[in-house]
């Protein structure tokens, strides 16, 4: 590598360090301080390490709100992802494989869904009308609606790389349309499905604004909203706030570490060799 390469590499690393690692260290250090110590919000090491106490207090705050939030967020994420994958792949399959006026109209709607910004008040009005406001089911459907455009787009593009002859071979082998989808196409979508699972699950799990609008109510709390626990109730308890941040960062982090390789594979692998 050239000298210039080294310099550019070093600068990139430095930037990445400042942008990603320093904030994380700041959060981690302050999460282990006492309340008094943390309120000064500086980078000094804790006077007393109170990691475990902070952790227990954070979890117990407001009658174990954090655990309830974990549960709610996981339910929303898992259900929404399952629906997204199944519907996204199916819609993408039909739109790609059966071009017709209907499928073009559907596709136009999907693109519109990506481009037109969502309107909160009418959505709440609709949710109230069908009795889904302030329910997890309603939140799941909203997340599916927000994620569907992107998911369908990704699946459609990927399905177009699967040779149509595979479908035709299956038709001749006697497969019904749903068998073609579930036994031939869906297994081949694994790389892109993994990408969608990772990207969407992190988006949905970390969502702050949508649960804030559509899911009010103490029993409906989601992980990002637990941050409010420490802003209103304990004004000066920054240490617990940071501990909370640390705790809710863990699941997405695990997903990333676990699926890291597959994400890259899913984004780079386009063609399926016939």
């Amino acid at each position, binding site marked *: 590598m050239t000298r210039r390469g080294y310099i550019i590499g070093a600068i990139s690393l430095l930037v990445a360090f400042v942008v990603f690692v320093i904030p994380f260290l700041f959060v981690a250090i302050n999460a282990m301080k006492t309340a008094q110590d943390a309120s000064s919000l500086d980078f000094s090491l804790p006077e007393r390490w109170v990691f475990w106490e902070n952790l227990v207090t954070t979890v117990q705050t407001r009658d174990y709100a954090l655990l309830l939030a974990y549960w709610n967020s996981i339910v929303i994420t898992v259900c929404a992802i399952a629906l997204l994958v199944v519907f996204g792949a199916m819609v993408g399959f039909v739109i790609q494989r059966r071009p017709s006026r209907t499928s073009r109209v559907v596709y136009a709607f999907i693109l519109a869904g990506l481009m037109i910004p969502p309107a909160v008040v009418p959505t709440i009005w609709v949710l109230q009308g069908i009795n889904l406001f302030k329910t997890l089911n309603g939140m799941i459907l909203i997340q599916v609606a927000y994620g569907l455009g992107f998911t369908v787009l990704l699946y459609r593009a990927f399905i177009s790389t699967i*040779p149509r*002859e*595979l479908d*035709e*071979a*299956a*038709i*001749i*082998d*006697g*497969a019904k349309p749903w*068998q073609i989808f579930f*036994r*031939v196409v869906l*297994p*081949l979508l694994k790389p892109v499905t993994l990408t969608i699972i990772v990207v969407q699950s992190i988006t949905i799990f970390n969502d702050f604004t949508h649960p804030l609008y559509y899911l009010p109510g103490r029993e409906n709390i989601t992980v990002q909203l637990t941050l409010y626990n420490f802003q209103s109730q304990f004004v000066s308890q920054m240490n617990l706030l940071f501990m909370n941040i640390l705790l809710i960062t863990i699941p997405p982090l695990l997903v990333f570490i676990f699926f890291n390789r597959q994400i890259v594979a899913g984004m780079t692998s386009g063609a*399926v*060799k*016939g």
Partner: protein
Amino acid sequence: MSRVELKDLRKNFGGLEVIKGVDLTVEPGEFCVFVGPSGCGKSTLLRMISGLEEQSSGTIEIGGRDVTRSEPSERGIAMVFQNYALYPHLSVRENIGFGLSLARTPKDEMRRKVETVAETLQLTDYLERKPKALSGGQRQRVAIGRAIVRDPEVFLFDEPLSNLDAALRSQMRIELTELHERLRATMIYVTHDQVEAMTMADKIVVLNGGRIEQVGTPMELYERPATPFVAGFIGSPRMNLFEGDLAREMGCEVYGIRPEHLEVSETEGRWTGRVRHVERLGADTILHLEVEALGPLLARVDGSRTFNPGQTVHATPNTDKEFRY
């Protein structure tokens, strides 16, 4: 073994008529080859027989049964695609057995059938492999195996050998011919390669622009091509065809003579021309001549004779082998 009968079959794509009324009977057990230039509708016709493409009008009968409105899987056909179309996520065993598993065949029977087929195609050692770990020839054999295991009345092939290299292609030609002899099934084979057509077919159907130009055995088409198009298409190198003055002189609209039916001499002959290019094939040599008043002319001569570019030679047609249209 079944007869395939097509009656006034037509196909439109939008406003464009691609198949313009095809009547054809393929006899039971026959190896029938569709040839024609690219875009003439060979694949479309085959896909209509398979049921993958719906006809605009006309009827299709397989084994005396009208299947015009039947699903592809109910027509008793099996198809081999140009790019093999193997299921990439399934092993060779599962690829061959896919149709059987869809039909809920008992496990033992499926196993037995797949293994019998694998044995005839020398695939036994590869049964657990995925398609991407196979060579082109092996993939093609798996695709053929998937067809055989369905025990179809009619096999349909759409340019199955065009992705293989020359040596493998001629080997697969022989294997397919042997397979046909063993199974005695009706086979319909699409190709644009007239060598494949000549070597494998019992019956050749020459298509041009969505119509049948001529139907016949390979030698019939070679010896008695019905139209200038067939004359130019069957035979390699292609027949010399002339319109205009020469044809008028000969009392016809199109005059044709095959390169192998020209007598080439250094001293005298009917036409005088200059050698532009010499193509040595070993046993034969193809001469590209430029004849005054005629234009380019191909002649096939014995490989032992030597000619050089620029040389002046004379060519005389064998009058028994001329074609006039």
